[in-house]
């Protein structure tokens, strides 16, 4: 793409990239939390006895990941001691239009609700577990959906400023959450079911293979959304095209095409659907690990790659 006349920038002063690795990690952990919570709720509401272990695993993972997530935000802030400025909730002190304010409310309520839910799941109180499951679903979805809004409302960045962002984030949260659940469920089956009967282990294995199918469906949805996003930014504004260039064959090609699409998308997809590999725990856990790495690469490329297009 040789320009008609060469243009060279002799001097410019780009400032630092504001959102770095801690923000990517934050998105990753909220995603894991939301994803495992939703799977846990599906298991609890499903009502069958053999689903129960899944409900328990998810119920403990969701609050755990959500305790890790905001730590990254505190590390990233330059004035961490002023975090309470976000929580005064007084008119004139908190901006209700900012997606971060939605996030503060969600990050305060969702862990509480998820912890109460986990308590009732472990206490075996089906009725209250179901109530808090239903209450928690919108919170879990929005705790990750709002992070999509954080990026989508950053209208200076062409890669972020799309209505697809919240949906893409929720779907990728499902992908990583299911992958984490599969790993935990396999660990449980292999190491913590020594004294269970053959029949119980068989049932548990079928359940894990069912999760593998879920994982495949979620990956397909995720890849479809990424395909949509890429196709549109390739033909949108100049900055959007440059962002697509960075992701597809530029600086972030290894992370985006190599790790996110191929390693974290296509290979796990093949493993969970290919008859010879889909019933093997080894292959399934390999696919889950790849998926989790791939989703982390997705967070990183979206956050840092989106800011790597110069603005001035």
């Amino acid at each position, binding site marked *: 793409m040789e320009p008609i006349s060469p*243009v060279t920038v002799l001097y410019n002063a*780009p400032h630092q990239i504001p959102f770095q690795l801690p923000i990517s990690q934050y998105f990753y952990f909220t995603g894991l939390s939301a994803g495992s919570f939703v799977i846990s709720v599906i298991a609890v509401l499903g009502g069958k006895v053999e689903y129960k272990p899944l409900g328990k695993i998810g119920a403990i993972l969701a609050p755990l990941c959500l305790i890790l997530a905001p730590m990254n935000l505190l590390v990233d802030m*330059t004035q961490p001691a*002023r975090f309470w400025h976000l929580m005064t909730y007084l008119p004139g002190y908190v901006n209700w239009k900012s997606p*971060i*304010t939605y996030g503060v409310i969600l990050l305060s309520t969702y862990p509480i609700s998820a912890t109460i839910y986990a308590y009732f799941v472990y206490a075996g109180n089906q009725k209250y577990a179901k109530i808090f499951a239903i209450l928690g679903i919108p919170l879990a979805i929005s705790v990750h959906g709002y992070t999509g809004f954080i990026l989508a409302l950053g209208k*200076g960045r062409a890669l972020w400023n799309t209505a697809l962002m919240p949906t893409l984030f929720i779907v990728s949260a499902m992908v990583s959450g299911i992958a984490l659940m599969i790993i935990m469920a396999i660990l449980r089956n292999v190491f913590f079911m020594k004294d269970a009967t053959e029949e119980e282990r068989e049932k548990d294995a079928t359940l894990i293979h069912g999760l593998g199918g879920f994982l495949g469906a979620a990956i397909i949805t995720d890849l479809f959304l990424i395909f949509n996003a890429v196709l549109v930014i390739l033909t949108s504004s100049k900055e959007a095209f440059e962002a697509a*260039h960075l992701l597809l064959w530029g600086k972030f090609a290894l992370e985006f095409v190599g790790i996110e699409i191929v390693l974290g998308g296509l290979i796990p997809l093949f493993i969970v659907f290919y008859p010879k590999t889909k019933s093997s725990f080894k292959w399934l856990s390999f696919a889950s690990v790849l998926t989790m790495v791939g989703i982390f690469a997705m967070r990183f490329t979206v956050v840092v790659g989106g800011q790597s297009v110069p603005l001035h």
Partner: protein
Amino acid sequence: MSNDVEEPAGGEKKRRVRYGMLVDLRRCVGCQSCSVACKSENEVPLGKFRTWVKVVEKGRYPDVSRHFLPSFCNNCEKPICNRNCPVKATYVRDDGIVMVNMHRCIGCMYCMASCPYDVRYINPLRKIVQKCHWCAHRLDAGLLPACVETCLGRALIFGDINDPNSEISQLLATNPVVTLKPELGTQPHVFYIGADADTMDPTRGVDIDHVHFHEPY
């Protein structure tokens, strides 16, 4: 105009002061005096800039030219940084200047991530976000911004765009002017006369894979 406000006492209409900056690039020589004056006036730390002049060369010998783009905070009429700041550290003055309250800023850097013009930076000493505010402290004292005061070619014209008798309003009314990224709807209030499209395009003339962003301290 929609910006008019009613004067409570006198009964006669008083216009709202709305400051604007006009950069007459026909007179800019790219001396970077504005950058230096701003650094001195506002104690801008090393490696950070509130004002800087982007310099671009284009063409093949003998058909060549050099273009400048003095850059300031656009103090937008609809600033996305103000909408996104969660703690109201960023606020807009009545005269349209977008300010950062240094005591409220938590340094979440969301304003930096959402600003389409890359004018905000983290002050590594004060650990908060800062930006060009057209030297609001000088304006309040009846002075012009430091960059305007120092500009040797009088390329920077600053004033009240709501006052029809101000120099900036007259120049805005009689010249073709452009702003940066008008398509984003932020309504920037730094206007340029004679700006070059290649210079205003952030993605022209740079190797997009090797942009040297400033490293965080």
